[in-house]
């Protein structure tokens, strides 16, 4: 059996990291051939939805590289990338997929060697991790469902708003001219990730067939009490409605949204 070779997608910013990769080439520094590079103008451009899409399609790893802090061609796009990746890692870890499959690194235009080193290291790490459970003919259904839910979360305004404002709120201050503590912010962020992720899982599940709170709780490995709270919100948002009551169990179904 040949050794497992991970497929890696690399998002490289045009101004630093892409140049760094070029430099690696010019300097003929060797690194594993696993990476497929996608050039973006700024690491901050990498939309969490796209990363999740890559992972859903079976990429074994995704790496985002950008300029070192303070060197971003677009002032602070890289810092935005950092917040996005942090959120994404939290989100991914909830799906059952290893969050190590996503990595962020700073590579400057002069760091050809470092670029090669990073790729080598990431490739080795992924070799050890093994193939993504979403790769191949039979992707892990549960994890896939999780990633699809995560995609919906990453695409919706709540988390995008939070991520988009995180840096300003913490470093520059909020509308009340107060700096928000990182811990306080993380609490809001983690709570939002948890809640929205579960809600989207539920929403996806009841798209297929009506389900009860108990059924959903079993499926998701959650306390039914929490599932009910999320059903309350989903009903308020008009995403889920009561289908029928079977015995003691109300069954909920996703509302058709055309």
């Amino acid at each position: 059996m040949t050794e497992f070779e991970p497929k890696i997608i690399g998002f490289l910013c045009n101004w630093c990291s892409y140049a760094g990769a070029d430099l690696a080439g010019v300097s003929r520094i060797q690194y594993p051939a696993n990476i497929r590079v996608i050039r973006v103008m700024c690491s901050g451009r990498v939309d969490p939805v796209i990363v999740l899409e890559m992972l859903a399609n079976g990429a074994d790893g995704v790496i985002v590289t950008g300029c070192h802090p303070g060197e971003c061609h677009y002032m602070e796009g890289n810092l935005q990338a950092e917040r996005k990746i942090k959120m994404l890692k939290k989100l991914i870890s909830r799906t059952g997929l290893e969050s190590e499959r996503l990595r962020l690194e700073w590579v400057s235009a002069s760091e050809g060697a470092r670029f090669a080193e990073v790729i080598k290291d990431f490739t080795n790490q992924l070799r050890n991790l093994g193939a993504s459970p979403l790769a191949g003919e039979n992707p892990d259904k549960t994890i896939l469902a999780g990633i699809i839910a995560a995609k919906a979360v990453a695409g919706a305004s709540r988390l995008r708003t939070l991520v988009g404002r995180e840096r300003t709120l913490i470093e520059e201050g909020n509308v009340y001219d107060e700096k928000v503590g990182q811990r306080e912010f993380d609490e809001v962020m983690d709570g939002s990730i948890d809640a929205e992720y579960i809600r989207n899982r539920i929403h996806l599940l009841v798209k297929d067939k009506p389900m009860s709170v108990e059924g959903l709780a079993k499926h998701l490995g959650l306390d039914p009490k929490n599932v009910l709270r999320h059903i309350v919100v989903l009903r308020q948002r008009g995403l889920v409605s009561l289908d029928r009551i079977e015995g003691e169990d109300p069954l909920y179904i996703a509302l058709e949204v055309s």
Partner: protein
Amino acid sequence: MRDKVGAILVVGGGIAGIQASLDLADSGFKVYLLDESPSIGGTMTQLDKTFPTNDCAMCILAPKLVTAGRHPNVELIMGAEIKRVEGEAGHFQVSLVKKPRYIDEEKCTGCGVCARECPVEAIDEFNERLGERSAIYVKYPQAVPLVYAIDRDKCIGCGTCQEVCKAGAVQYDEKEKEITVHVGSVILAPGFEEFDPKLKGEYGYGQHSNVVSSIEFERILSASGPYGGLVLRPSDGKVPRKIAFIQCVGSRDAKIGNNYCSSACCMYAIKEAVIAREHNPDLQCTIFFMDVRAYGKEFDAYYNRAEDEYGVRFIRSRVSHVEEVPESQNLLVNYVEDGNPKTEEVNLVVLSVGMRPPRHAEELAKTLNIRLNKYDFCSTQTFSPLETSRPGIYVCGAFSAPKDIPESVAQASGAAVKAASLISSERGTLTTVKEYPPERDVSDEAPRIGVFVCHCGINIGGFVNVPEVVEYVKALPNVVYAEHNLYTCSEDTQKGIRERIKEHNLNRVVVASCTPRTHEPLFRETVREAGLNIYLFEMANIRDQCSWVHMHEPEEATVKAKDLVRSIVAKVRLLKPLKKPMIGVTPTGLVIGGGLSGMTAASELAKQSFEVHLVEKEKELGGHLRHIHYVLGSKNPQEQLRSIIKEVTGNEKVHVHLNSEISDVEGYVGNFKTTLNCDGKKKEINHGIVIIATGAKEHRPTEYLYSIDKRVLTQQELEEKLTNGQFDAKTVAMIQCVGSRNGTRPYCSRICCSQAVKNALKIKESSPETDVYILYKDVRTYGFLEDYYREAASKGVLFIRYDDENKPKVTLEHGKLNVLVWEPVIKTWIPIEPDFLTLSTATISNPDNERIAKMLKVPLSKDGFFLEAHMKLRPVDFATDGVFLCGLAHWPKSIAESISQACAAAARAITILSKEALEVEGAIANVNEDFCSGCKICESICAYNAIEMKEVDGKLRAHILEALCKGCGVCGSSCPTKAICMLHFTDDQILAEVRAALEEEAKYD
């Protein structure tokens, strides 16, 4: 002395505060209504239904909220607290601290986009923590004022709301403000706090998910609650099959220091059980109780129905503790019944939590310098139940004692009359009368309709193609102008509408936006300011009933919006200007009945300078109070009686007619003419209102050897004996519910339990060795009366329960009275040989009521008491305007309750008497006498007695009493000859609307 101020500060925006504010504002005073929360409405907004009518709480409350919110004499001060009070009765200077809301109350349109975009979630307190809301929020969807607020504790300050608010209402730099108001008097209505059930650890609240409080259960029951009206258990969302209600959680509990009874819990628990059963007919509800205290009007009937029709089980027992079954999260309710420990497994436990004084009671009392009682409720006296210890500061609602909604509403009106009385010389000095330009006569003009279509930010514009609707509308016949606005309700658009009316000579206006229920008054005002009659305006509801409910079908929503506007335009084409007739008011009152209630009402009217005729059938004033010699918690009632008689007879405004009865009544609100029969002589008086205070009577029993043996007395007779010093006994037995709560008189007479306790204590006071036995069905010493029950028990009064199957037996044995009472635990009849047997007899309605009711055309309940307009929110009104009731004519009640109600009736009456003329609604019924056949059908179906038959040219014709018509239109749709036209909703107008709604949209396609 400084001048008095014609304004009142009302503290607390619950139902009591709202009622007090409206009564005052309608009587010519300026009102500042203060609430610490961002919206008015109080606890009642959280309730699903209300007992005993099962009315939807929001249905009956919302119109009052809107009226209070828009009243020109009511200024809402939300999110504020009292900081300091200076001055004295008549002229207080009150400093308030208003917390920042971070939203401009003038600019916010309540559209809700901010809340939908806010990324921060918070626990929804309105839904009792069973759901989530955002950090920017309104308390509930129908909130008044409908202005959002930022929860600063939760907000992280991200700025999203400001960005999405198209109205520019968000202002993060808002700071805490100090406001000073000058008022003549203050009314306190801060309500109550629910008891925290965590303090009763044995019931497992906070530990077991399926143990909920009664207020949480209200939200669970509510159709607009977190579970959308499904009764579910919080642990797993399953439908419960068995629910247990545990009573007296935090009430009647010496261990936690709340000795008093919370008065409303028995009834609300029964209601919750009944409503839950209506949700799910297989549900088994069990109520664990000590006494069922269904003492109010129609309460026992409700209780009986719950048991007989809804199969609610009642188990008389105090629950010792509740355990959770770990696997099922079901609950084991452990209790003792008849001496045996028992356990019942249920799916959900509801704890009927009691009422506590408001959180800041102590602080408030300190700031205001008023006294609290030992439980930290506001201290009041029996004969002055609405006065705090500080002159000029009054109290109503649950702050003075736990009470239900109708009692709170009655007290609120009562407090209003007291607060106004102090400053009645200043009536009308601070209220504003708006000046309008003269109305343009448009009767000869062809319709020229202007249509204003609202985007409502993105609320309509996001789903309905608003410009397309405007283009479509422009092509409709008679539409000469149409435009679209970001917010049609904004200040600048209002100005724009007025300008367009002038520029384009518009004579009809349509606004297509949200709902007329909240916004019609605003736009009517706008067109009126531009010289148009308010009835030349209509709204098309393209938001609440279109864009918001068809969010995923923008094309169809646009088609529907066009249809809605088209059909409203079709109606508007036919609109006619209407006049609001003015009806003169005779500023004189008539009070029927010279007992405590009647005298109090008369005195309150006179104090505010209104003439009043007080009619008493007997030869002296005083009524039932003449027979009361001592009262629980109060000194010398006879002295109080003398003082109030003096007050009434000494006031030249009060005309007392003794030995008199009314023999004929003519007329209607503002203009009654009543004939009195005074000692055989006829007197005619003109008056604007009537207050019925005819009292009630003590029932004379036929059972238990009453009237056969002299030692068998009624409580009143015992009281006479105890007062006259003729009492000497070793043993006294009392039997409760004699003539009450039985087949013929199924109701509870409310006062007999405390009467028995009162007499028992009196006996113990003079001869502690005398044995007193009270044989009862339920001890109904509600509120603070519970203290006296406890005192009696501690002094050795023996309370022995009996039920209907084993009623006490009374016989004469060798000349001695022998009472046998069944003891259920040892299952045997116990003999008592009392020297006196006292019967707590029913209070029965005055037999004169029937005659009086017919003359005034007002209804009676099946027990012969007067039946008010609405048991919850209009406790002293009748459906017929200008007629009010109070005291025992309404239902048995205590002295304090009678006084509160009498004051309330006076307050309600003054809302009419204080006006020179009453403005009548223009959209009312109108009779075409040529078509009328005089069949009287309309007369018989009008619920307001607004139609009377008059002879016109020798024929009977229906005649509308404009002052009484409420504009429902039921007469019009029932008239066989179509002689009645319902103005503003005429047949032609409605039919045009219907036809246009169904037209094909050919033109636009």
